[in-house]
């Protein structure tokens, strides 16, 4: 067996993806509204693990440099932006999302191709910064530098890494910070947070997460109605607009189409599904469709991944909103032990009946990647399914060798074939 780059499209088009794209386009368009501040709104740049509902409840538009990195990556502009950041002193060994973000700040109106492709030309300038270190320690340094560059305030939500249990004093520490967070936002907006609006926003957040979880669960079916690339694109609103009621009907539409695929026995790919894999880590954004399409042509589908699962944790619904949020925002994949990752991946491999695991290892994201050699071995021991580690990057194409990746994946497929 040998891999050749597959030009022929074997993806089944998901019509509702257009609604997601429209929703995102509107979201970015609104963030660039020149009258936004006159309307009593402000802009915050936030990390993907930050408690976004609080911002939405306060009429603050959250924008995600990580998501911008993904967009710039998909538009194949991120490597250039990384190089801009490097020319300002940032090491090429640092997170490529961070470097892409710095590149866009130092080069705010990238001429081509990004502005032509998506019309963004960089994120709208922030009024404040919100960072949560529940996804990694890098965000702390990244946002400190953004704060220095823009000379705007930064709020850090500190969620120390979790062990096997969550002590009460841990939740006390986080709950206290969420109180400070509200005070910080009130100070920035010069008005009090409305409790009813906050409760409503939390409700909309739960609705979106519930729909998203249902969509992910439908991929347990054979053939899987969605592939990795579908989910990586579909997840944008549940990451960035969680709590905004406008995304609820968008996900209802997606769920309906995915359910229809399941009912009709239609898979994400138009060729027979030969191999089902789990994908671990952030995708290779600059090679997203080429990578998954070439694999799809061989009948490889990814019904599950660890990245999009991260947004399937619902906020609990009790009377203590802040403690609930403290538990939810600390109890996430990247803030937990490698043993938890091994257990979760093993469960997902079994639940989604995967034949193997593809671990994407990248120097850009040490929190996500370090420990994958052990995870791979232990997942195989627990599930009997093999895994392979492929080196790449989410945004910096200089760190990805396609040939090397194909060779390793090819070896995995041969191993599976031999065992069949």
């Amino acid at each position: 067996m040998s891999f050749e780059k597959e030009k022929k499209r074997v993806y089944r088009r998901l019509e509702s993806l257009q609604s997601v794209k429209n929703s995102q386009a509107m979201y970015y368009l609104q963030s660039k509204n020149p009258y936004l501040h006159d309307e009593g709104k402000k802009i915050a740049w936030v990390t993907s693990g930050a408690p976004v509902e609080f911002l939405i409840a306060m009429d603050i538009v959250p924008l995600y440099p990580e998501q911008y990195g993904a967009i710039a990556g998909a538009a194949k502009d991120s490597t250039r932006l990384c190089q801009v950041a490097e020319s300002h002193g940032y090491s090429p060994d640092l997170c490529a999302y961070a470097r892409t973000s710095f590149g866009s700040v130092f080069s705010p109106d990238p001429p081509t191709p990004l502005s032509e492709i998506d019309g963004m030309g960089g994120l709208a300038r922030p009024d404040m910064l919100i960072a949560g270190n529940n996804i990694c320690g890098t965000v702390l340094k990244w946002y400190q530098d953004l704060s220095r560059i823009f000379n705007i305030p930064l709020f850090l939500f500190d969620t120390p890494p979790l062990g096997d249990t969550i002590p009460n004093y841990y939740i006390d520490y986080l709950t206290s910070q969420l109180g400070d967070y509200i005070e910080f936002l009130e100070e920035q907006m010069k008005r009090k947070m409305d409790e009813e609006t906050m409760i409503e926003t939390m409700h909309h957040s739960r609705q979106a997460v519930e729909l998203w979880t249902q969509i992910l669960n439908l991929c347990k079916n054979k053939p899987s109605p969605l592939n990795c690339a579908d989910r990586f694109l579909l997840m944008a609103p549940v990451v960035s607009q969680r709590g905004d009621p406008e995304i609820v009907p968008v996900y209802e539409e997606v769920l309906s189409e995915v359910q229809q695929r399941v009912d009709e026995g239609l898979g994400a790919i138009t060729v027979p599904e030969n191999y089902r894999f789990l994908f671990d880590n952030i995708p290779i954004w600059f090679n997203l469709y080429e990578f998954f399409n070439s694999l799809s042509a061989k009948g490889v589908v990814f019904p599950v991944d660890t990245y999009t699962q991260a947004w399937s944790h619902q906020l609990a619904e009790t009377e203590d909103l802040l403690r609930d949020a403290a538990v939810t925002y600390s109890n996430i994949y990247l803030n937990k032990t490698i043993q938890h990752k091994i257990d979760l991946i093993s469960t997902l491999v079994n639940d989604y009946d995967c034949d193997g695991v593809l671990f994407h290892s990248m120097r850009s994201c040490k929190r996500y990647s370090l420990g994958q050699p052990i995870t791979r071995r232990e997942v195989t021991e627990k599930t009997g399914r093999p895994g392979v580690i492929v080196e790449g990057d989410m945004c910096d194409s200089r760190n990805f060798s396609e040939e090397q990746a194909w060779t390793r994946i090819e070896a995995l497929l041969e191993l599976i074939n031999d065992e069949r």
Partner: protein
Amino acid sequence: MDLIFNYTPHYFLEGYTESLKVIQQQGKPLLGYFTNRIPVEILHALNVNPIRMLSINSSVQGASERYIQTFACSWLRQIMDIGLNKGYASFDGLIFSAGTCDSLQNLSDIWKKVFPEQWTYNLTFPVLTDTEAAVEYLQNEFDTLIQNISQKFPENPDGFTLSNSIKLFNIKRVNLQKLASLVSERKMRYHEFFKLLLLGDTLPIETVNSYLEKKISQNEITNPPDIPDSPRLLLTGGMFDNYLLFEHVSDFDYLVTDDLSFGTRNFNFTMPQSSFLQGYAQAYLERTPDPTAFDMEKRWKGLENSIHNHQIDGVILLGIKFCDPDTFEFVSIQNNLKDLDIPYLNLETSPDLSNLQQIETRLSAFIEMIS
């Protein structure tokens, strides 16, 4: 424990892992730790010997690749290599600092998998340092640490007397401050001082205090060595511990002070002598922050004061390959140094000093430029 009095610091450090076996024979449990945030006084009061992990002396290179990727912090990979070579087998347990950097965070999980027989503990630090909630959190973390160590190593004939332990470690810090003054006054070479710093973290505290006092009195009676007057350099960076760099590259004699995790940040304070954990936790958080803490303004102020107090002509930024916090922080430090019009040199290396020659050449050129 007269071992150190019979040998030179160089000899002791060169045989670091062998020396650990001798220390272990004293009878107290040996607990290894990674960062300068670990509450050594608490460990000492619990009748264990806190010994800092050093990355010196790895004879097995690359064995760690089976468990941890090559882009992990090179200092931690070297530690893993030594561990795989049984270099830390003398330790009865290890205390990891969680909530610091991603590489160390993941290493603690990996270590548990690779060395399941060795007792390990994760002490988690808040990144915030200036809130009551952070103090309370750290106090609780310390309290939980005490309970866990008391269970694991219950033998403590003198009982838990924190204030006595604080007193002992404060003596060490004051002694190191005196020795640091000798370096600044050009009466002691930096590499000699740096070895004493490492010894200060790797020998039982009682031995360290006697030894440092002896060194201070020796230096007071001997003539100052022939050390160049200028330029006066400051070294900043993080987890660098290979003293051989400073021994081999003679231009490091221009160093008059540092801002390293193994260096000044480890002794430029004293702890309040009290048995109350709350005050202890608060004092810990009030120390000069590491690059992994939130309060960068305080961190920069500390560095700026050091530049001013030591009349610094140039700054060396010494990064460890694949250390994210250092690498990130160097960008803002460089910007601040430009504002102060202080020349700087950015160097990067790994614990095995694979680019020693390049460092020597660049440092020499830098000194020539600013002289």
